[in-house]
């Protein structure tokens, strides 16, 4: 209590400084006077009396010091003094302060913003209880390390596995939802009954699915996503138990999911319902349309689980050799399934941001060193006046703290803006598959990371000059001409730092160059068809209204005819899956009259209408196109792509040969009537797979993609497409209208390449700037140190040209070292990041050469300015200056 009071008073003493000083002076004064008067009375001479009194006082200044120390808190008082001095110092050198803060803030911004994405995608646990025990389970076969499960396989896996507490499956789906104005196709999730329980999630309203609803002929029930409940059902709580019509069928709403529930693979699903066990795919063991999610039993590892499922799969392979040949199992953590795709790009970006921070730190370190070099004399004077080494250190630490904290605050602000801006750049339909980005922002992990970065900058800013101080004897600072040796030492250190900077800049520039080149190659990859002037739209008709093949064929014909009659449309066609989507939706085939070893021949399968190849501009190599009247009444026909022809009919005539399913069942036999030149079915960066194309009219569906070749800009036709279809058949829904070029540009592959190229490009540009500024700083400092030497040389008759050479040689040496080191580093870095490269090798000579030349030119420009200053040195003045 007493002590507390004293401390409060002392803290208060920090502020009432002036009054205390005068009072103290007065008190000393009266004390001395009384003592002197007493001494005089005792018979001393005035001089003696005064001397004795001062002795008793113990010296005025030490007395004051002791008194002051007790009046305030010395440590705090020093800190406040240091702070005030720091503020004065920084105000005196605003360029230094601003540069350091900006450079550090940029490094911080890039790092924290990228880390927030890394955290959201890779570190933050999934929003389910005990998420590390959740596994993504699937089959594995040939070209697909992660292949879909078939429903019958799933049931056996579920029954015979011993590794999982529960195993459930899901797949995407869609419903047509009627609003008063339109029929909207909506995305849906189809799940096995225990799906939510396996995740550990309960509904917000109503109840979960029960086993009855998964059984064949069970009641039609549906759960709503929170957003759908809010937007389509007005958030009414009586929605549970109500009926809703989806794709023309009656469903009962049994529950509403929580607002914070999300499941990335079905990110956009609005309605959730159970798997249709009697669906055309679910009844076949060879039709794979499901993904599994499972919760490990306690004490079971991933490897145990994998071995267990693999054994089950082997059993099934023996039991069903036709459908299950070489169908293995795959078990990976669910997080890996959800965000594993983003790992390479995020790692590259994190690496890029790290390099940027490194170069920023090196830059700041050399700035700080240069500044503390310039303050040697100040430090020497302060130390001569009695400041202890600790006191000088505390000054540096304070300055470092102030700068680093200000830079960090600025960096955090920029990072906050940066991460939201980056998130805003992600196409809307892509973000639904990345729900983990929804709450992107500062959390404790991101803040801890930011704190670590800030701590590094504090160390950098305060320890660097302190070490510099400790290494150089302060006494030297007072000596005239002492700059010679110490200046040289610093020049060496500064040069080394600048080589590091240039090397890092080189690595980032090469990275940006390679990624940029990849992006260019990707967007200019040979597609095999004309993507320009193509408009696309997805069409879905309710199954209940279009059950018969004739109805579906008629619908397709009508829609094609209607769209072709639109102004600006030259031709239109249908396909089950648009080009440049993905390799998948495959078929197992077997060739008639060719030996068959039972191994699955897996090829892409697409159903296309008769005008499809002409409409997209794919070239027929041999044979003929489909005709519109080729339906079930005609012999089955098929067109194959060049890759399939080359692989399975090398040097043979494929036209007229026959393809069937694995058992060559009679109804599966089709005759090859044409070979089409390869075009991209799959993603931009994927290989062309063997593919077969069937006439839409021989395998019609209620879902298809319409492609329209336009004579004008395809964008102009887009709004008309949906409207025309709706006018024709109000019960048919359409969605996703986009131009083919737009689809390609916004595809996940293009987006990932584009964003990494742009981000690394930005980092590289910043790094180039920092590196060049660093080089300029070192050369300029070197010139200022060598002014006298240059003066002497010129006085002895050296020409301007030789002075230029002298300076440029120094810069050239540093730049070449940096470029050389950087070249080695960039090949290494590019090798690590080769997953992101497309169509370029990690040691692309062109890029390396271009970057080296760019850096070289930048280095020459940066050193030319100080070189000119050196050459314009007036020898007389230079010699007199010292």
């Amino acid at each position, binding site marked *: 209590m007493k002590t507390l009071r*004293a401390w409060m008073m002392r803290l208060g003493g920090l502020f009432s400084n002036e009054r205390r000083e005068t009072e103290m002076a007065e*008190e000393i004064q*009266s*004390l001395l006077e009384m003592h002197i008067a*007493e001494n005089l009375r005792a018979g001393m001479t005035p001089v003696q009396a005064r001397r004795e009194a001062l002795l008793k006082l113990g010296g005025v200044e*030490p*007395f004051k010091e*002791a008194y002051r120390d*007790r009046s305030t808190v010395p440590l705090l008082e020093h800190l406040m003094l240091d702070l005030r001095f720091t503020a004065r110092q920084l105000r005196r050198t605003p360029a230094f302060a601003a540069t350091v803060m900006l450079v550090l803030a940029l490094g911080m911004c890039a790092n924290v913003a990228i880390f927030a994405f890394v955290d959201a995608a890779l570190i933050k646990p999934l929003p389910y209880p005990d998420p590390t025990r959740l596994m993504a389970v699937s089959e594995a076969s040939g070209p697909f390390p992660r292949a879909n499960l078939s429903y019958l396989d799933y049931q056996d896996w579920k029954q015979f596995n011993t590794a999982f507490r529960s195993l459930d499956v899901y797949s995407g789906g869609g419903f047509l939802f009627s609003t008063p104005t339109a029929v909207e196709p909506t995305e849906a999730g189809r799940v096995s009954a225990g799906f939510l329980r396996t995740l550990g999630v309960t509904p917000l309203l109503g109840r979960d699915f029960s086993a009855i609803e998964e059984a064949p002929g069970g009641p039609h029930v549906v759960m709503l996503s929170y957003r759908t409940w809010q937007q389509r059902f007005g958030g009414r709580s009586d929605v549970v138990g109500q009926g809703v019509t989806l794709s023309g069928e009656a469903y009962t709403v049994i529950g509403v999911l929580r607002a914070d529930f999300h499941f990335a693979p079905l990110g956009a699903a609005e309605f959730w319902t159970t798997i249709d066990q009697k669906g055309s795919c679910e009844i076949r063991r060879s039709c794979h349309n499901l993904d599994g999610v499972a919760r490990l039993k306690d004490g079971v590892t991933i490897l145990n689980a994998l071995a267990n499922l693999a054994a089950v799969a082997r059993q099934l392979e023996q039991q069903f050799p036709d459908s299950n040949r070489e169908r293995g199992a795959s078990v990976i953590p669910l997080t890996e399934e959800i965000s594993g795709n983003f790992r390479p790009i995020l790692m590259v970006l994190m690496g890029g941001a790290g390099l940027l921070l490194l170069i920023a730190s090196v830059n700041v370190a050399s700035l700080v060193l240069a500044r503390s070099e310039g303050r040697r004399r100040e430090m020497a004077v302060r130390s001569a006046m009695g400041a202890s080494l600790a006191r000088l250190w505390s000054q540096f630490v304070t300055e470092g703290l102030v700068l680093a904290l200000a830079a960090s605050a600025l960096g955090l602000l920029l990072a906050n803006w940066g991460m939201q801006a980056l998130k805003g750049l992600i196409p809307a339909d892509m973000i639904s598959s990345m729900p983990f980005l929804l709450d992107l922002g500062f959390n404790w992990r991101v803040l801890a990371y930011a704190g670590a970065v800030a701590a590094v900058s504090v160390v950098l800013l305060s320890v660097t000059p302190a070490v510099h101080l400790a290494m150089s004897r302060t006494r030297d600072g007072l000596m005239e001409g002492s700059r010679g040796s110490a200046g040289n030492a610093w020049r060496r250190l500064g040069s080394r730092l600048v080589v590091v900077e240039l090397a890092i800049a080189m690595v980032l520039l090469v990275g940006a160059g390679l990624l940029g080149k990849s992006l260019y190659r990707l967007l200019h990859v040979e597609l095999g068809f004309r993507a320009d002037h193509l408009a696309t739209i997805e069409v879905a008709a309710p199954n209940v209204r279009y059950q018969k093949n004739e109805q579906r064929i008629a619908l397709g014909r009508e829609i094609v005819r209607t769209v072709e009659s639109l102004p600006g449309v030259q031709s239109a066609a249908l396909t089950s899956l648009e080009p440049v989507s993905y390799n998948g939706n495959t078929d197992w085939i077997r060739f008639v009259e060719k030996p068959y070893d039972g191994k699955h021949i897996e090829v892409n399968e697409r159903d296309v209408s008769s005008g499809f190849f002409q409409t997209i501009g794919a070239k027929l190599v041999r044979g003929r196109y489909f005709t519109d009247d080729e339906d079930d009444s005609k012999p089955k026909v098929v067109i194959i792509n060049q890759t399939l022809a080359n692989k399975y009919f090398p040097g043979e005539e494929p036209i007229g040969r026959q393809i069937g399913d694995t058992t060559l069942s009679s109804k599966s036999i089709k005759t090859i009537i044409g070979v089409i030149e390869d075009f991209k079915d799959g993603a931009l960066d994927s290989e062309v797979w063997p593919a077969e194309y069937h006439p839409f009219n021989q395998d019609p569906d209620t879902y298809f993609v319409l492609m329209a070749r336009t004579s004008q800009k395809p964008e102009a036709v887009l709004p008309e497409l949906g409207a025309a279809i709706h006018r024709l058949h109000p019960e048919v829904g359409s969605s996703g209208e986009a131009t083919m070029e737009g689809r390609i540009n916004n595809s996940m592959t293009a987006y990932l390449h584009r964003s990494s190229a742009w981000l690394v490009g930005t980092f590289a540009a910043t790094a180039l700037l920092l590196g060049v500024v660093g080089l300029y700083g070192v050369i300029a400092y070197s010139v200022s140190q060598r002014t006298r030497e240059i003066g002497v040389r010129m006085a002895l008759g050296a020409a301007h040209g030789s002075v230029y050479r002298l300076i440029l040689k120094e810069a050239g040496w540093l730049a070449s070292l940096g470029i050389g080191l950087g070249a080695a580093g960039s090949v290494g870095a590019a090798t690590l990041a080769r997953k992101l490269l497309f169509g370029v090798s990690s040691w692309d000579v062109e890029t390396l050469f271009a970057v080296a030349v760019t850096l070289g030119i930048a280095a020459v420009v940066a050193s030319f300015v100080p070189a000119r200053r050196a050459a314009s040195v007036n020898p007389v003045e230079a010699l007199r200056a010292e």
Partner: protein
Amino acid sequence: MGNKADVWQGTLALMVLKTLESLGPLHGYGIARRIEQTSGNLLSLNYGTLYPALLKLEQEGSIASEWGLSENNRKAKFYKLTRAGRKQLQREARDWAQANAILARFLAPNEDPA
């Protein structure tokens, strides 16, 4: 002169309080003189030690100070005991006497007849 003992750590505050109790409000010079006199000039009190101690007592609320005029009409700062200071004095004096008595018993010649 050089043989005088310095004031022991911790006892100065007690001496200051006792001085103020017996003499009433007093300036720093007077306190110093009085302590030296009471010690029979065996103690030498440096002002650089006394004044921070006065400041500490004042910060702790045991004494208060105000400016006044000395006997020779000089301006001086007078220190006086507060109520809290009086209590502190009683407590510390008692503690000191006790400690003293204990120590005395240790140091006294062994009177216990065996």
